[in-house]
C-alpha cells in the first residue's frame, strides 16, 4: 500500500486556470497535485483529439511533469469527507487526497435553456458538438445550425466549417446594437481583435443577431429548427443543432466546501482566496471571463497558495480583464423572450422527466423540487438547475455528496490514499 500524500497545493481542474496555477505554484521541494476529469490536461479550451495534449500547452505540461507535479488525469472529485481532504475516483478506484492549500479551477459548463424539441437526438451544446467532433464525430457535409449566445458561437461555427460542415446559420440572441458596441470595446483588448476579424471573415455572413431557436422538430432525431427574431420565423432543415446560452460556473465543489457564492459566482479576495481559508478559486467560477482572465487568476492563485507574492503586473492585468468580463456579461445578457420558449409540456428536468407545467405555481423552489423531484436525478440538477434559475428565479439547490454518481463502495472509503509520496 502506498503512503498518504499531503499536497502542499492541490489544484482541481487542468484547464487554463488550473495549468497556470500549477505553473505558479510548483517549485522543487513542493508537493503539487493537478486533478482533471478528462483523460488529458487542457480542459474545454485546450481540448485536443482524444487522450492527447494540445501543442499549445505541451511545453507547459512537460515543465509541470519535470517539476514533479503529480497529475491525476481522468480523475473526478466526488466528495470532501473531512477537512483538507477530497475523495477522487479514477478508473473505478477511489482515493482520498489531503492538502494544505486547495485551488479550485473547476471551470464552467454550457447553459441549456429548454425549448420544444431541445431533447431530440442531434440537438446538443455548442462546446458539446465541438468536443464530439474532436472525439471523432464526422460532420463533413452535415447541415448545422449554431445558436445561443456568446463569442463561442463564432469560434465553433468556424471550427465546424473547417471540418467540412455546412453552417446554415449562427443565431445569436444578443441584439445587433450590443454586438457593435462590444466590437468597439474589443479595440482595447488587442489580443482579441485579430481573432475576431478572422472569425468574422470565416463565418460572418452566417451571423443572425437578435435571433434564437424557437423550437426544433423531427420524428426520431432532429429534422429542422425554427428560428425567430420575435417578429418573423424561419424554418431550416438541418442535421445538427448546436445550441447553448453561454456558460454557468461549476459551483458544486465550491459549495460543498462551504465557499461563499454570490449572484452565481464564487466570491474571492484579491489573492483569489475564497471565504474558506486556504481554498482558492480561479477562472470561470469567479466570473465568466474566458481564457485570458482564467490564466491570470490561475497564476495569482498559484502564487499566493504557494505563499509567494504575485507580480503587480499580473494583478493589474487581471483587474483589466475583469472589465472585459463585465462587458461580455452585458453584451450577451439573456433576453427575456427566452424565458417563454418552453411550452407547458416541454421537459425541463430530463433525469426525472419533469415538464414545465409541473414547475409553476409553487411557493418556493424547494417545494417544487420536493413535489416533482426536479433536479434530483442522476445529474443532480447540473442541467436543469441553471435553467430553472434563469426561467423561474430559483435559488441554487443544496449540494449533497457525492458530487457525481459513484458506486456505493466509494462512500465506504475511509482510509486515505494509495498514492506514493513524490520523491523530492
Amino acid at each position, binding site marked *: 500500500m502506498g503512503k498518504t500524500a499531503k499536497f502542499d497545493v492541490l489544484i482541481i481542474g487542468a484547464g487554463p486556470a488550473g495549468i497556470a496555477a500549477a505553473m505558479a505554484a510548483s517549485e522543487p521541494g513542493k508537493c503539487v497535485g493537478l486533478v482533471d476529469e478528462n483523460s488529458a490536461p487542457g480542459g474545454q479550451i485546450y481540448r485536443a483529439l482524444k487522450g492527447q495534449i494540445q501543442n499549445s500547452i505541451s511545453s507547459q505540461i512537460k515543465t509541470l511533469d519535470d517539476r514533479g507535479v503529480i497529475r491525476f488525469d481522468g480523475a473526478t472529485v466526488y466528495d470532501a469527507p473531512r477537512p483538507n481532504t477530497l475523495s477522487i475516483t479514477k478508473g473505478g478506484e477511489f482515493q482520498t487526497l489531503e492538502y494544505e492549500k486547495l485551488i479550485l479551477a473547476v471551470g464552467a459548463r454550457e447553459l441549456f435553456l429548454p425549448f420544444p424539441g431541445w431533447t431530440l437526438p442531434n440537438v446538443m451544446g455548442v462546446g458539446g458538438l465541438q468536443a464530439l467532433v474532436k472525439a471523432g464525430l464526422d460532420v463533413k457535409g452535415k447541415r448545422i445550425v449554431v445558436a445561443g449566445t456568446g463569442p463561442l458561437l463564432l469560434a465553433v461555427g468556424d471550427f465546424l466549417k473547417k471540418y467540412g460542415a455546412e453552417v446554415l446559420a449562427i443565431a445569436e440572441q444578443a441584439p445587433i446594437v450590443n454586438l457593435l458596441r462590444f466590437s468597439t470595446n474589443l479595440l482595447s483588448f488587442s489580443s482579441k481583435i485579430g481573432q475576431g476579424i478572422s472569425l468574422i471573415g470565416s463565418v460572418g455572413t452566417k451571423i443572425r443577431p437578435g435571433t434564437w431557436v424557437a423550437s426544433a422538430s423531427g420524428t426520431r432525431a432532429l429534422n429542422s429548427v425554427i428560428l425567430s427574431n420575435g417578429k418573423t420565423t424561419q424554418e431550416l432543415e438541418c442535421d445538427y443543432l448546436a445550441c447553448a446560452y453561454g456558460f454557468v460556473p461549476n459551483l458544486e465543489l465550491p459549495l460543498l466546501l462551504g465557499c461563499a457564492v454570490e449572484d452565481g459566482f464564487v466570491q474571492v479576495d484579491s489573492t483569489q482566496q475564497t471565504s474558506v481559508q486556504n481554498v482558492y478559486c480561479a477562472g470561470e467560477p469567479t466570473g465568466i471571463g474566458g481564457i485570458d482572465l482564467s490564466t491570470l487568476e490561475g497564476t495569482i492563485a498559484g502564487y499566493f497558495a504557494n505563499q509567494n507574492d504575485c507580480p503587480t503586473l499580473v494583478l493589474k492585468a487581471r483587474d483589466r480583464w475583469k472589465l472585459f468580463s463585465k462587458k461580455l456579461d452585458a453584451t450577451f445578457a439573456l433576453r427575456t423572450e427566452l424565458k417563454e420558449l418552453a411550452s407547458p409540456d416541454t421537459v425541463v428536468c430530463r433525469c426525472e422527466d419533469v415538464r414545465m407545467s409541473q414547475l409553476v405555481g409553487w411557493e418556493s423552489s424547494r417545494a417544487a423540487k*420536493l*413535489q416533482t423531484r426536479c433536479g434530483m436525478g442522476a445529474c443532480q440538477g447540473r442541467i436543469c438547475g441553471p435553467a430553472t434559475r434563469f426561467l423561474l428565479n430559483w435559488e441554487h439547490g443544496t449540494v449533497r455528496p457525492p458530487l457525481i454518481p459513484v458506486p456505493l463502495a466509494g462512500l*465506504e472509503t475511509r482510509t486515505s490514499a494509495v498514492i506514493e509520496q513524490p520523491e523530492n
Partner: protein
Amino acid sequence: MGQNFDAIVVGGGIVGCACAYFLSRDLKRVLLIERGPIGGGSTAAGMGHVVVMDDSPAQFALTNYSQQLWMELYPQLNHACEPRMTGTMWVAADEEEFSHVEGKRDFYVKNGLPAEVLDTKSLEEAEPSLRKGLPGGLRIPQDSVIYPMAAAQWLLGQAQLRGCTVMLGQSVTKAKNGEATLQDGTVLSARYIVNSAGDHASSLTPEIKIEPRKGHLIITDRYPGYVNHQLVELGYLKSAHEMSQESVAFNAQPRATGQILLGSSRQFVGWNDEIDRALIAKMVKRAEEYLPSISQLSVIRTWVGFRATTSNKLPLIGFLPSDPKMLVAAGHEGLGITTSVATGMLIADLVAGRPSKIDRSPFAPTSGVAA
C-alpha cells in the same frame, strides 16, 4: 385579535396534513400553518414505507389501523404519490433470527394480516439480489410504499377542497388557550390548536419532550428489479428501540423510479445536519451483508433528516392536560408516514368527541409528559 378558526394545525408535515384532512371533514374553518414547504421536514427524509409494526400492542394497533386507512385512500391518490404494494420482506440474517419468524407470522395472521414464511430457496427466488444461503424471511404482502412529500401535499389539497386554508412561510412562536401567535406578531384564535410541528413540537409545547433523532438516507441511480420488496433486517426493531447514541440497520426500498433508497441510521446528535461519512460507510457495509453486490450500484445522493422521538417510542396524540384547547400530534419517530392518517383520524375523533376505532389512551400526551 385575528380571525376565528375552528382549528389551527401548526406544521405541514405529513402528520399535520393528515390532521387537516380529517379535521376538515367535520369543521368548516381549518387553517394549516407551515413555515417551509409542505412535507419539507422529517417527511422529506421519510422512506415512505407504510408498514405494520408488531413491537408493542399500541404500535401495532396504530400502524395496522393507519395502513387500513391508507389502503382506502390509495385508489384516490394522484399519480405523484406513487402508491405501490411492494410488501415488506423481513430478512433473517441467521438461524437465531429465523427461529423467531414463525411466532412473528402467527401474530400477524392471528390479527388478520396475511404473512408468509419463506425458506432459503423461496427467499432467493423472491429476492435474487440477496446473499445466497440466508435462512429465510417473512413476507408481509400488505405493506406498501408511497412518495411521502406528494402524499402530504395530496392530503392537504383534499382538505383545501373542503375549505381548509393554508398559510405558508409563517411560523408559530406561541400557542396557548386557543391563541396562536405568528412570527410577525399576529395573533390568531381558534377553538382548537393542533401541534403537529414534528421534531420541533417541543419548542411550541415545552411540556412535551420530543428529541430530534438524526437519520441518513442514500439513494442510488435506477436499477429496476434489483429488489422487489421493501427489505428490512429482522434486527431492525432492535436498532430502532435501542435508545443508544448511534445504531444502524439494513433497510432497502425499491422506489417507483427503479432507484434503491437505502436506510437506516439513528443518532442522537442534536440538530447537526452534516453528512456523517463514517456512518454512511457503516450503512453501506451493513447493506452489503444482505445485498453483496450493492456496493457496485451508483449512488446519486445522500441526505439527512430528523425523526421526532419520544421517550416511550410512541407518538403523542391527544389533548394536552394543561390546555383544553390544545392538542398534540407529534413524535412519530420513524413511522410518521405510516401513522399519519390514523393520527389525523384520532385527532378529528377527539375534537368531535367521538370514540375511535382503536384505544387512544397509550398515545395521550400525559404518558409522554410523565416519561
